[in-house]
């Protein structure tokens, strides 16, 4: 089933001269994990926000084309309604903290209170989200006392509690230390295994190659390629788009070690080892 359908999406921020998103069309299936890559300013964040309705409803500006998410048309639905179907997590863990709640538990329940979910169900959902993100130990602590990794997992939990079908993450680990990054990627992987459709904008190519079913390469708001990690990362002209392939791919390219029966290079450590061992 198609969870995300993007048709000729165009968007221009108010007072801007160029399009931030230029005629994008693609579809995402249920349960897929999609990576969005591209240089800074290519439109990754804008695309992420276009999937949840912040583009255009929060910024206004100029909008064209159509985005349908879990059956709802983004242009015609409010951000509130969309947030029950698709959630988003941003870069800075601490600016996502509401500030109005004194414990992690209450913080995660924030969205549920706004949406009028009955108390009994609220408690079930919060418990489930805390468990999934490994936050049970800190559920009574103050949100501002958490580490970056914990705070980001709390942000994800707050979004998961709303039971969306799709979750979008916009560079969620760029402000975290290596341990925090590991924690968050493990959590994202768990979500994907639970069947959630995940869309992840990232710079950490090794992670994208490891976890994503398909990768979407953006440049200047245009869709350059939407294909498997192997196909995208094996491109000769990747550097032209400000993207460096995973280190394993770079090594294999130097050694001209391609995958068996394919013109693509390996993109993960395991694949690279396999190919190089076989030589």
């Amino acid at each position: 089933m198609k969870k995300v359908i993007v048709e000729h999406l165009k968007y221009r921020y108010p007072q801007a001269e160029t399009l931030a998103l230029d005629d994008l069309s693609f579809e995402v299936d249920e349960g897929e994990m999609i990576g969005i890559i591209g240089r800074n300013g290519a439109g990754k964040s804008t695309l992420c926000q276009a999937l949840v309705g912040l583009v255009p409803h929060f910024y206004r500006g100029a909008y064209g084309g159509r985005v349908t998410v879990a059956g709802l048309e983004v242009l015609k639905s409010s951000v509130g309604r969309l947030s029950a179907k698709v959630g988003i997590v941003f870069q800075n863990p601490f600016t996502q903290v509401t500030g109005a709640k004194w414990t992690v538990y209450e913080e995660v329940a924030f969205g549920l209170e706004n949406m009028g979910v009955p108390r009994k169900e609220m408690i079930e959902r919060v418990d489930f989200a805390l468990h999934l993100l490994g936050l049970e130990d800190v559920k009574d602590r103050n949100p501002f006392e958490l580490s970056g990794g914990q705070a980001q997992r709390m942000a994800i939990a707050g979004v998961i509690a709303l039971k969306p079908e799709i979750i979008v993450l916009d560079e969620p680990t760029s402000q975290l230390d290596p341990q925090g990054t590991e924690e968050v990627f493990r959590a994202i992987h768990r979500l994907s295994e639970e069947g959630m459709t995940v869309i992840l904008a990232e710079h950490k190519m090794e992670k994208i190659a490891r976890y994503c079913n398909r990768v979407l390469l953006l440049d200047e708001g245009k869709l350059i390629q939407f294909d498997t990690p192997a196909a995208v990362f094996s491109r000769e002209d990747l550097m032209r788009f400000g993207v460096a392939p995973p280190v394993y791919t770079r090594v294999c390219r130097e050694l001209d070690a391609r995958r068996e029966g394919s013109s693509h290079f390996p993109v993960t450590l395991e694949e690279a080892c396999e190919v190089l061992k076989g030589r």
Partner: protein
Amino acid sequence: MQQRKSWFRFTTPSLVLIPVAVGINYVGKLFAGTLKLPLWLDSIGTVLAGMLAGPVIGALAGAINNVIYGLTVDPISFVYGLTSLFIGLVAGIMAFRGWIDGWGKALFVGLAVGLTATAVSTPLNVWFWGGQTGNLWGDALFAAVLARTDSVWLASFLDEVVVDVPDKLLTVLAAYALFRGLPKNIRQLYTGSRDLESLD
């Protein structure tokens, strides 16, 4: 600053602006103290909120500022919440009518805000402290004028003017400087048009 149409914009950015305004008020006062400046500069956030999001948000920011101060630092702030409300209101009205474009006009608005604050605070002072302000130099002036003229209102007014107008003048100028220094995408959030253009 151009003239703006909608005065009641309770958008999320406007709401989130209020805690920031209260914070900027606090930080302004903090820096004025650290730098040992002879001013309070504790309303810069309120004025900036009025400039960005209009009179209603400005007034709310001012009132809420004093409510929070009252709950956390000094209960007497509750009494002067009305003054803060009017500071934000007037700054917002003038900004939204497009009257603050250029430093000369900003100076004028600063005087207007200062006189408004004085006009609102004076009755509060007369009611609460019997005309005094709690400020040493201002109250000395109060005593002198009262002794000479026997007019509580005149003495109280002058006490407040001397204390408030210079402070509010510099407050508005500082807020205007900060407003002008904001990056376009932040200002856009508050001042931009709410129309959605179609590209189809």
